[in-house]
């Protein structure tokens, strides 16, 4: 400090409003040792940013992965009791119970005959909805107009091997269909012919017997929804699809646990980084400490001075780090999940408290060491 021009602080002191000595010491300490203060702040900011990003991801990853899991399709199936058709209006009832938290797709089935007398399962459904529900369906071209049919790739060999128009009959009534495309799923759908629900109903007069529902939310929410559906539609059997629900719960749980372990490790490491940098910073200022003490400052005043300094550093670092961390989390979300991670402001108090606590801890350790040393020894540079 001796090498600085004396006039500059003196001029500043005259011009500046009468702030308290305490505040001025805080500010001047940071300004005069810009480099060290900046590196301490940098460590703080990086740690807070990493912690924010990890906590944000941890909170949000469940929602993100759940959306991916919805690509597995329906997690609740509503079927008529003993294979009977569902009463009219069931779809509307199901949709009102869902209230936007998922989608419901009706399916109606009959066994029809081809002109050569072969049996084939024909299903009527809502193609626009199926497209969204069963994303794994590999379809060469979705039917657009009435009278168009989606033919499973195994059924195609029977009904229309060269994708020519074909006829199907059900209880003596014949329908003429144009195959629009081939469907491949690797499951029972491959042996079926799919029509639009309106074509299907006007041809067979059969109502949907199955509603497949993809409900969003946690396992508990989906189970609660299934119960509500069962109460609202007493004429139907409501079955949660255990295969999908259990698989989802398991993978989600494991991923979250791994993420938690990673978050704990990373946050610990960054806390350590802050600890060593800040300890260095406080230790480095043992001469300030000694001078204050030699000038007669009480232990309490000095402690509170260093504590205030550390807390201010922690708080500023936490806020800056929080902003950066949210950016990092959003970037990870966009890169990996193609949708940004929502900023969680609930994380801010946690980060703020944690940062200030780590900063105070790192100030307290060197302080307790210094307190034991005579000021004279420090000033002599020992």
């Amino acid at each position, binding site marked *: *400090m001796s*090498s600085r021009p004396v006039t500059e602080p003196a001029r500043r002191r005259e011009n500046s409003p009468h702030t308290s000595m305490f505040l001025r010491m805080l500010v001047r300490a940071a300004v005069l040792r810009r480099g060290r203060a900046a*590196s301490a702040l940098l*460590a703080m900011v*990086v*740690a807070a940013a*990493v912690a924010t990003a*990890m906590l944000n991801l941890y909170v949000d*990853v469940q929602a993100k*992965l759940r959306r*991916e*899991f919805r690509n*597995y399709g329906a997690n609740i199936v509503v079927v008529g009791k003993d*294979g009977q058709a569902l009463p009219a209006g069931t779809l509307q009832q199901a949709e009102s119970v869902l209230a936007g938290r998922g989608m419901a797709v009706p399916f109606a*089935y009959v*066994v029809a005959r081809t002109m050569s007398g*072969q*049996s084939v*399962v024909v299903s009527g459904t809502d193609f626009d909805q199926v497209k969204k529900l*069963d994303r*794994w369906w*590999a379809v060469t071209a979705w039917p657009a107009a009435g009278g168009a049919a989606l033919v499973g790739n*195994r059924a195609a060999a*029977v009904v229309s091997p060269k994708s020519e128009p074909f006829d199907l009959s059900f209880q003596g009534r014949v329908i003429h269909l144009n195959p629009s495309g081939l469907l491949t*799923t*690797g*499951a*029972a759908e*491959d*042996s079926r012919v799919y029509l639009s629900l309106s074509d299907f109903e006007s041809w067979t007069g059969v109502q949907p*017997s199955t509603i497949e529902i993809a409900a969003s939310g946690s396992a508990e929410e989906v189970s609660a929804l299934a119960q509500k559906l069962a109460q609202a539609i007493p004429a139907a*059997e409501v*079955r949660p*699809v*255990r295969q999908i629900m*259990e*698989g989802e719960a*398991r*993978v989600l749980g*494991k991923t979250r*646990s*791994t993420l938690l*372990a*990673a978050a704990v*490790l*990373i946050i610990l*490491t*960054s806390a*350590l*980084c*802050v600890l060593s*940098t800040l300890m*260095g910073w406080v*230790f*480095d200022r043992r001469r300030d400490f000694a001078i204050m003490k030699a000038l007669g400052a009480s232990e309490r005043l000095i402690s509170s001075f260093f504590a205030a300094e550390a807390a201010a550093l922690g708080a500023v670092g936490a806020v800056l780090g929080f902003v950066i961390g949210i950016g*990092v989390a959003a970037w*990870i979300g966009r890169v*990996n*999940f193609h949708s940004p991670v929502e900023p969680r402001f609930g994380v801010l108090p946690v980060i703020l408290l944690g940062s200030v606590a780590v900063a105070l801890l790192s100030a307290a350790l060197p302080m307790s060491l210094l307190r034991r040393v005579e000021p004279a020894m420090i000033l002599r*540079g020992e």
Partner: protein
Amino acid sequence: MFVRLVYESFRRQKRRKLLAGVAITLGVGVATAMIAVATDIGDKISRELRTFGANLIVTPQEDTLDLQIGGVDLRPPSDGAYLSEADLPKIRGTFWHHNIVGFSPMLPVNVTAGPSGTADVALLGTYFSKTLTFGKEEFVTGVRITHPWWKVQGAWPDDNSQDVLLGERLAARLGRRPGDDIDINGVPHKISGILSAGGPEDNQIVAPLGLAQQILGKPGAVRRLYVSALTKPEDALARRDPKTMNAELFDRWYCSPYVESIAYQLQEVIPHSHAEQIRQVAQNEGTVLSRIKGLMLLITLAALLASALAVSAAMATAIFERRSEVGLMRALGAGSFPVAAVFFAEATLLALIGGVVGFAGGALLARAIGRSIFDSQITIEPVLFPIILAIAVIVTFAGSALAIRRAVKLDPVYALRGEA
């Protein structure tokens, strides 16, 4: 003199060295654990994804059209072709047999059940947990592996017994409990348990495969086969038609665990069969897997960054505290190169010690994570060791470089007066 300087510095400044050493050890440990977890997570999650059930289905090539509605096969049992049960153990002989977690044959039969043959129900013959032999090797397979969401109240039947499982809805309708008897086509069978599957099986009887074959009168017949395999997410190569590939490309395709190449190999070993991926399971698996792997990769990068920063911060602090020493050396006439060399040597030594201890600690940490989360070991590639050590040395070097440069550049007079 050089060696003595380094040695004495370690002997006399135990506290500072310990602090820096701990920082390096922890940093390296966290980095090792995270890299190990990230490299292994694909394998682990892929195993967890098998809880979604089989991703491949094998059917007879000459089969008639399925007439399945709501999981109930309406086709007359005399119709269609069958696979031969005797071919199944050959699956163990395919190139990717280590990736095949399990398989379950299925044979649906229509029977009458109940005291006086009142109800027509579907009976599904399958393996529960059957021991098969291929060559000299014994292995266990069945629905308990491929359909892990099936829950049984009571006991699973033995594969060689005549006992059956009753679907829970059917059991409720017939008023049966585990331990009761049920007449199937007039013959009494013991109900060993009630099955809850959350699917069409809840309305069916599930029996050992042998019993279904006996009822059908076709020994060794299997209608379809579900195979659960660990696969690699699909890419451009996977989707190509093997017939259009040249020999080299075909070898690469054949030797990658794509769901397509495993299907191809299943068709090779099971005569007159058609193997296909169950797209609902197989396609989604790839997306979920790549999302989780991508997430872990990015997080590992964050962990590496955090530990690199922690190490550099600790090193910078340790060197900054010793600038009066540097001043003394410089005042006594040492050039900046020898002084820097002493510090770099110390840093390298610290990095090596911290790296070895950290690697061991990180390996233990990774194992602990693997055991507590995935109930299986996370294996650490030995090739990681030199890489981690090199990274530790580089990061320690880089972290110290700036601080050493500043310490060396500082005028010895200021340094000795304790001003910087």
